């Protein structure tokens, strides 16, 4: 192995690590606030890439069918609206129902309609990215409202089972919407920078920089804004946060919106680097999960570092022993779990 191969592997590892870091952050965020182990995070990544790919022009003509994600948003908006309506009627709060309907059905429908209209136009690439992010991010809160909010008080195990079910449902819908074959999106840039002997592609540089920027924005959000602080309070102590007036539903919705945005963003970032399939997300989210476990599902900086470690390990493992790459990456979780279970004191969730 010479220096140039080493440099390329490190670059590859850091690029992938940056994507895993975004996922790990989303997983930690969701788990900390809602106790949901968010298995379907990967589907948001693949939906991100595939929606963007579906918006691309084919032979200079706009796509024949707008991305299926729009129909999912519409369908989920209707279901969420109905659920809100039923809840309001049961409580006899008719006045509130109009507001809730507008919020849960009106806004997603407006986003869906806008995306449907925009998909037919000749959009610049950045606008396509905005449409994609808007669509996929909308799925986050809707998913929380439909699948998780009715069970918000259930045990971690029940929430995990729901997550697995949601994962399978979204994978199946992905196959229906995007087909069995994969897609790539155009590169942001095909340039590369020469640093001595080492060539760094601008694409990888962009991925890493955007990841760092996202992490910085998150840090600001949690440190400076009221809603960010409310989320942190909920993460620390749900009952306490509720007593001081933080609505757990609002916290859950905000968390899922943010997490969906993070995952959709990872999807947009990896689209030009690799081919993404309707079922690609699971493996990506598993690696994000390994990174999140390294952070103990609570620590953001540790999770980001873990993601970097996973990315680098993966790159070097694929060079030295490609047949055992996944084995090596996932075996990493065993010593980490061992170390964590020895150092951390036992924490029983039912005690809260």
């Amino acid at each position, binding site marked *: 192995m010479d220096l140039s*191969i080493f440099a*390329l*592997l490190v670059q*590859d590892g850091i*690029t*992938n690590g940056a*994507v895993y870091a975004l996922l790990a952050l989303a997983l930690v965020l969701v788990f900390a606030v809602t106790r949901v182990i968010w298995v379907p995070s990967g589907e948001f990544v693949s939906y991100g890439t595939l929606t963007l790919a579906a918006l691309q022009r084919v032979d200079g003509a706009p796509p024949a069918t707008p991305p299926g994600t729009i129909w999912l948003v519409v369908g989920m908006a209707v279901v969420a609206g109905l659920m809100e309506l039923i809840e309001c009627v049961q409580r006899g709060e008719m006045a509130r129902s109009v507001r809730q309907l507008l919020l849960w059905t009106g806004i997603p429908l407006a986003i869906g309609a806008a995306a449907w209209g925009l998909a037919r136009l000749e959009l610049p690439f950045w606008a396509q990215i905005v449409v994609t992010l808007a669509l996929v991010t909308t799925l986050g809160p809707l998913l929380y409202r439909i699948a998780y909010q009715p069970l918000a008080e259930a045990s971690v195990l029940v929430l995990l089972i729901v997550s697995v079910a949601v994962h399978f449902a979204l994978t*199946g819908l992905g*196959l229906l919407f995007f*087909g*069995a*074959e*994969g*897609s*790539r999106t155009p590169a942001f840039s095909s340039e590369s920078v020469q640093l001595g002997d080492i060539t760094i592609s601008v694409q990888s540089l962009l991925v890493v920089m955007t990841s760092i920027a996202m992490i910085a924005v998150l840090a600001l959000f949690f440190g400076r804004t009221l809603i960010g602080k409310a989320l942190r309070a909920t993460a620390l102590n749900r009952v306490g946060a509720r007593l001081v007036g933080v609505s757990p539903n609002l916290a859950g919705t905000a968390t899922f919106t943010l997490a969906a945005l993070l995952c959709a963003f990872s999807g947009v970032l*990896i689209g030009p*680097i*690799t*081919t993404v*399939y309707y*079922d*690609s997300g*699971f*493996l*990506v989210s598993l690696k994000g999960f390994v990174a999140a476990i390294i952070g103990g599902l609570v620590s953001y900086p540790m999770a980001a570092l873990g993601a970097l470690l996973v990315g680098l390990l*993966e*790159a*070097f*493992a*694929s*060079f*030295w022993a*490609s*047949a055992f*790459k*996944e084995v090596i990456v996932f075996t990493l979780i065993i010593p980490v779990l061992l170390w964590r279970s020895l150092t951390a004191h036992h924490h029983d969730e039912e005690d809260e």
Partner: protein
Amino acid sequence: MHVRKWLPALAGGIALALSLSATADINIGVTVSATGPAASLGIPEKNTIELLPTTIGGQKVNWIVLDDGSDTTKAVTNTRKLISEDKVDVVVGSTITPNSLAMVDVVADAETPMISMAASARIVDPGNPKTKWVFKTPQSDALMADAIAVNMKANGVKTMGYIGFADGYGDGWLAEMRNSAKTTGIRIVAEEKYNRNDASVTGQVLKLVAANPDAILIAAAGTPGATPQKELAARNYKGKIYQTHGVANPDFLRVVGKDGNGTILPIGPMLVFEQLPDSNPLKKSGAEYIVKYEAKYGKDSRSTFGGHAWDAYLLLARAIPEALKKAKPGTKEFRAALRDALESTKELVASHGVYTMTPQDHNGLDNRARTMIRIENGKWVLAK
């Protein structure tokens, strides 16, 4: 009380079941991998089944299609269900090798013929007595690996690198390629594996390029085959790139884009039937299928996988009238007669090749079932 309430319904159900079996339609059970990792192969097969006629030899045919989700357990469950509940006369499927291998035991026990649409030669291994009931339509890996080795030799290739799926498909190809390379005197200097969902194959490709072989074979199915190829292009690899017939679908061309130019692969002649000489009998039989398929599913929607399902139908269309002369559908005798008729198929010109079955060879394809093609500007071009 409860029993009395249900009794009429039960009696009705039995009567219905009896009347159904009395009509003696031919029931053909199909299990394909229309979802899961092999969905890109299973979907064109399923689409092809939808094109098939509902009468063969003047007898009504019921196609009962189930999805096994590329899952071996599900494929076995489907097969059992088709045999015990639907009383099928023949099973077609599955799409992939592991599923088909697992189904062999089930159909052999039930003495029901089966036509697999998966590639591995092990499915019809004559050494296994149970494969008496099993046939398969796709070309075996050995036939295709040999075609690649011969082409490499002709192009002056002395050393080759290999990168393929870390699963049964890749392992099967690697084993066959080692054999073929040995017989043609080509040295394999690097062997790498990857997974179809891998986000990056940089590590493997760097190692391949460092070994500097004259040619590289990528053993993958569908669009995942583009991942190493694009990486090789990014690393400025100048040698020849070979793919397997697993990538021959329009999506691969779309994803690989201009990086696919010059790639060579072996293929069933049907894919490029327009370019075949008129003297080739496969030109007409390939056209018959592809024109019908593209009329329903759109221009350039052809893939070789659907052809395997079509060929299974052609085998049955020849064998069923023979079997009908000997026994009534739905009986054990009919299934045995159907098996015998399939085994005695001679010179059947189908979409992928010409089938001549023998007790030793339940695949029945020869060199006419392969041709080398090249990718040029997003099109398949017959290699001269």
